[in-house]
């Protein structure tokens, strides 16, 4: 892994099933001040202990937010109860993303030194999440929410404050999609994105000192494809996480620590 991750806000995204949750949880174990939050499985914490975690739900985040704005919980609760308001939230998922992004920034502003590791939604939803900032900034134009969208945006576009990790698999299509996502983020002003390739057989062979000649043809084929991809996309070995055969968290943590030494 290139460099220590010391940004207060870290998003782990990528396609479903690439091991996002597990990787994000492993990061949480690397920093005693890290707090894990799963945005992709809202409210449901994984079976494996992620260490320190928070469990926020959309309704309480929204109520908190409105309470802050009007300095009245009664008004907040009343607004939340109106059918119009709940209908809007159900129809427009990007509004709920904005609410969560606001919560993250607010939390970090009030907990100096904390690090928030977000198990973010899969690629497409991640773009919706990021777009929600510009979208609502454009829609509102003025008022309190407009100011807040700008505050969120400046937090997320600051490379010292926010890092995005796009986790992917060692296939051409998966890496290409990872890079597309990175470019998409960059076009929204989010420059600090790292691509990490998970489940690498090449790295597995490397770590276990397995020679090419020991591999059967169907695996050698894959390992060769992976090596070509490393060259094609100019990816550093340190961005690879080995194929995991046991104790997922422990092996990821060891690799990340190795890469940092």
């Amino acid at each position, binding site marked *: 892994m290139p460099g220590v991750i010391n940004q207060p806000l870290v998003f782990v995204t990528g396609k479903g*099933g690439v091991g996002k949750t597990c990787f994000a949880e492993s990061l949480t174990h690397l920093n005693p001040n890290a707090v894990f939050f799963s945005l992709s499985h809202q409210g449901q914490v994984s079976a494996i202990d992620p260490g320190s975690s928070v469990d926020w739900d959309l309704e309480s985040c929204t109520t908190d937010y409105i309470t802050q704005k009007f300095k009245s919980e009664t008004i907040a609760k009343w607004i939340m109860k109106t059918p119009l308001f709940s209908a809007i939230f159900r129809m427009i998922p990007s509004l709920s993303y904005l609410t969560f992004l606001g919560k993250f920034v607010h939390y970090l502003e009030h907990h100096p030194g904390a690090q928030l590791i977000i198990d973010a939604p*899969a690629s497409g939803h991640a773009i919706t999440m990021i777009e929600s900032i510009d979208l609502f900034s454009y829609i509102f134009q003025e008022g309190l929410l407009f100011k807040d969208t700008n505050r969120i945006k400046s937090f997320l576009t600051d490379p010292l404050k926010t890092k995005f990790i796009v986790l992917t698999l060692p296939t051409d299509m998966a890496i290409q999609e990872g890079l597309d996502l990175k470019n998409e983020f960059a076009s929204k002003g989010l420059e600090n994105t790292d691509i990490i390739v998970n489940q690498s057989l090449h790295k597995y062979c490397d770590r276990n000192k397995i020679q090419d000649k020991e591999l*059967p043809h169907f695996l050698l084929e894959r390992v060769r494809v992976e090596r070509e991809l490393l060259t094609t996309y100019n990816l550093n070995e340190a961005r690879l996480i080995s194929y995991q055969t046991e104790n997922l968290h422990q092996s990821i943590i060891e690799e990340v620590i190795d890469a940092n030494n």
Partner: protein
Amino acid sequence: MPITNNHFEIFCGTGGVGKTTLATTRALYLQQQGFKTLLITIDPAKRLKQLLGIPSMSTGEAYQVDPKSFSLPKGKGKLDALLMSERAAFQRVLPEYGQAFLENRILGSLLRPYGGMNEIFALLELNYFHQSGKYDVIVLDTPPGDHFIDFLQAAEKIHQFFDSKFIDLFNSLQNYLQGKKSKEKKRGFVKKVLSQGIGKLMHYLGQVTGEQFVEEFVEAISLFYHSKSAFIDALALQNVLKDGKKTNWYLTTSVEHQKIKEAYALQRNSARYFSGKQHLLINQSLLSELNLWQPSDIPLQKLQETMRNKENELIQYAENCFESMMVFPSVTHFPPDEQIKHLVTCWEK
């Protein structure tokens, strides 16, 4: 196991497992069998788009696919492919309001790709082509993962949006808006509206979001309301989808993805929205090769064991929970067009 042809063939699953590829092979297979087939896809890889002959930017139009691009015979049927476009879907379904929707700042933004309403438009699109009666089979490549649940919930959301409470509220909102426009009437309307609490809500909303937003918002709601029949129509489709006789659901997964838990959750969450036949497609299988391999080294044995266990767990799960299961071999050693051709033949089994 033969899979009977139904009106809808819906492919769901997490991203990056070859869902679009398998949906394409299914559409090509049906075309070869003589069916008039439509493939609606969300976001195919660049190479697949080229092979299908659809432009890289979505136009919302259906393009005829030439099976020869995949080295397949001409076939008896016809295959059209369409790249989902929220805007095109909208203008097609609501020709009279389409422009007004796009001009409204709020709705126009939401109609962009990733604007957050894609699932609802996928449902509208599907309904439109279903109503057109032009196709024997529609193959739908749904948005990946949780998006799929959003897709299933789309009809429910539409329903909730137009429920009776909301309609009452809408009437008050419209009065509020008219009240703002005509000053003489304003006082009376605002008074009435205030008594219902709407004015208070709009006042707060205005403070937070700005006055202009409130006006555009009321206009947006009004446009939605006037075009509600298009949305309500799409609700009827939900019943067609629920009908097991009309729909095949393919949950696609790959052995490379650590997916069993999520595939299971997806299946469980989606069960309440349909009762069609559910099939599990396992893509990129190496099982036959793994079974023949006899590694001597411990790390290699561990690798074989892990890879084989992953596949066997998936098969076990499929046998317990699905109508049928199909295993597609890993075809990465073929060039892209031949990969598709090779996978098309798998449907014959």
